[in-house]
């Protein structure tokens, strides 16, 4: 397997390790959601580029669909988690919470 594809895949694995350590080590749950919602799609994108270099056009098209699916859906899902946590738990660790006036306005 060409070393170029392999090195790109190792780079994607490094970004995935960053995502995993980020989810593990961050203190507030909002920071953990950032690590989960942003770093892991980037890691998958980099690995998909590396793998499609090696797999040729057939694999590249399938990987492109998988990358499109993950990039379009995962941040949205984690954003929903943000909103769910923001509404249910009192945001004590937030220094400035601009969303409170917008959310608590009577509809």
């Amino acid at each position, binding site marked *: *397997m060409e*070393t170029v*594809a*392999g*090195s790109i*895949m*190792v780079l*994607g*694995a*490094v970004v*995935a*390790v960053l*995502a*995993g*350590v980020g*989810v*593990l080590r961050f203190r507030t*749950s909002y920071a*953990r*959601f950032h*690590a*989960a*919602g942003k770093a*892991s*799609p980037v*890691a*998958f994108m980099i*690995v*998909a580029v*590396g*793998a499609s270099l*090696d*797999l*040729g056009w*057939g*694999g590249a098209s*399938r*990987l492109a*669909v*998988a990358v499109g*699916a*993950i990039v379009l*859906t*995962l941040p*949205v*899902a*984690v954003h*929903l*988690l943000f*909103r*769910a*946590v923001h*509404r*249910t*738990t009192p945001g004590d660790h937030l220094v400035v919470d601009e969303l409170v006036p917008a959310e608590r306005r009577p509809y």
Partner: protein
Amino acid sequence: MIVAVATGGFVFAGLCALVRVLVGPSLADRVAALDVVLVSAMGAIAVDAARRDDPSALIVLVVMAVVGFTATVAAARYIMSEEKS
């Protein structure tokens, strides 16, 4: 050799997220960490497909992405439904 390093990286990322699933104070942390486990499994599958050089196993990635999204959305809605009650 390179593939072993890449797969090891994904396994380590999945283990870190798995620890967050076990430790995580709130349900939302667990759901986000499970999402990271899923994405690292997807990356490992992509690396393995590249190693075996057959693109047939890549369709499962799309299914995993959509199922992971649906699960996270369902869990988020469950968490939000608690707030209303």
